[in-house]
């Protein structure tokens, strides 16, 4: 399952143009990684695409850190 963490981090690096070293599990997308609100929507959509899952709006709101994203996907991913 650590594979999921790597894939999430890769998406974050690609989308936000940040260094891989910055993408720690406790890093907040908006406060620490410079994302704006549209970035967070794009990230959620990218996660949905990558993992073949649906992330409902109320769940998406709670995904504020890289670790939140990994946790949600681990609990819901099919692949």
């Amino acid at each position, binding site marked *: 399952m650590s594979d999921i963490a790597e894939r999430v981090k890769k998406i974050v690096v690609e989308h936000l143009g940040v260094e891989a070293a910055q993408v720690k599990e406790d890093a907040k997308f908006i406060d620490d990684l410079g994302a704006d609100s549209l970035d967070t929507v*794009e990230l959620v*959509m990218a996660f949905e695409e990558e993992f073949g899952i649906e992330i409902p709006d109320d769940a998406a709101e709670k995904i504020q850190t890289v670790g939140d994203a990994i946790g949600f996907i681990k609990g819901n991913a099919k692949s």
Partner: protein
Amino acid sequence: MPMFDLNGKAALVTGATGGIGGAIARALHAQGATVTLAGTRAEALDELRTALGERVHAIAARMDEPADIERLAKDAEAAMGKIDILVNNAGITRDNISMRMKDEEWDKVLQVNLTGTFKLTRAVMRGMMKRRFGRVINITSIVGVTGNPGQANYAAAKAGLIGMSKSLAQELASRGITVNCVAPGFIATPMTDVLSDEQKKAILGRVPSGRLGTPEEIAAGVVYLSSEEAAYVTGQTLHINGGMAMI
């Protein structure tokens, strides 16, 4: 390099078999864009596709069918590899004085002109966001700003497009996507041909230019808003109406 060059750009035009839509498709194509024509009449689409020759695709789709809209966005992107320019031109009228207007007439016009436009734009904007480039041009109408007796449904839908466009413009500006409206006045098309001579005369009395506009004059505005040169123009409504309303 000439201005408003669209070589290498991919455009999707809805309502492409209509008077204004056809002129828009031709104009974008003439500037070098690859164009996907969307409309409800397959035969008319094929005719226009044949007339334009290279760099043209045609997809039949109904804007009141959500499944059609999804498929249109997908197929157009597959055919052209991307969509840079989306011209939401599809529109219908079901005129009636409000007291007599049926639910069906109200619903249909809102569904096609406003809801369909939103759904298609939503389906297309994802690719534009990823590529950090997009031009969305919604064809509204002067009556969306001034109102018009007998067109409460049409005017509401067209006014809705303007508010929707301003909201989308704010959401998407940071991604290199502009969203604007073009608002035609009284243009010579099959949609206005059905008016009686008396009605036409009355309308022309309110047009300082003293004549109907042409579909090509609308298309020219769309070409401008589609161009790289218009990158700093967003959330605007370009009125092309011979001075009929100055707003």
